[in-house]
């Protein structure tokens, strides 16, 4: 069983790949179904890329959470970048400031059970997602 909490640095482009592999390992250790693993790893990829590209790097904190008999994985992506100017616009699908399709935030929200975002201009952005088994 993996440890309950781990902090992971996202400072370079291949950290996005390593974050994906890390979340894959945890979700497979917890015996998530293949589809659930794929959804969580995909959401990780989107959010870790945001942290790196838009936030100028930051951290991903991974936790195993429990709710009664249910287990889940909570991932918190934190950066101290410029923040998101218009959060409503960013959460709407198809809006992009970068090279993606603008599906990063809206898309990853659809792939998880819980999604929380806090952002402040000039201070940074924190996105927390949870996927229950």
């Amino acid at each position, binding site marked *: 069983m993996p440890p309950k909490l781990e902090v992971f640095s996202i400072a370079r482009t291949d950290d996005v790949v390593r974050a994906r592999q890390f979340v894959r390992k945890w979700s497979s250790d917890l015996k998530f179904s*293949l589809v659930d693993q*794929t959804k969580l790893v*995909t959401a990780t990829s989107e959010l870790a890329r945001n942290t790196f590209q838009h936030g100028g790097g930051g951290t991903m904190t991974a936790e195993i959470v429990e709710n009664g008999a249910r287990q889940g994985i909570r991932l918190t992506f934190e950066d101290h970048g410029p923040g998101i100017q218009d959060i409503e616009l960013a959460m709407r699908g198809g809006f992009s400031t970068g090279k993606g399709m603008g599906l990063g935030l*809206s*898309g990853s929200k659809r*792939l998880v059970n819980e999604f929380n975002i806090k952002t402040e201009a000039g201070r940074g952005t924190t996105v927390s997602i949870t996927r229950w088994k």
Partner: protein
Amino acid sequence: MDRIPILKLGDCLLVTIQVDMHDQLAITLQEDLTTQIAKNASKGVLIDISSLEIVDSFIGRMLANIAAMSRVLDAQTVLTGMQPAVAITLVELGMSLPGIKTALNVERGMELLQEYIGRDTEPEETDAPEA
């Protein structure tokens, strides 16, 4: 610098993505492929993603770009081998990869490409309905 190999097979190019790609690798592949299409006057591109465990919006965008660029360079693209869990996730993410032709495996993908090249028509073209 690492690269994804592109194999030439007659008038087609074959790419098998077997590693967990970081973003720069995906961009390099896109550039290499367009260069090779032009250089070899290729008519078809087959991209096999059966070893890819995820396709996120970045890789999805790269695949859509490759298909669009190939089309402009007079080549057809077929994407093969997408894992079911990847397909489910991709659609839920909001990407249905419109305009990309797919086949279940490399063998069928090659057949499809040969068919398109032989016919020399747009695969999605159908006869216009009578006015």
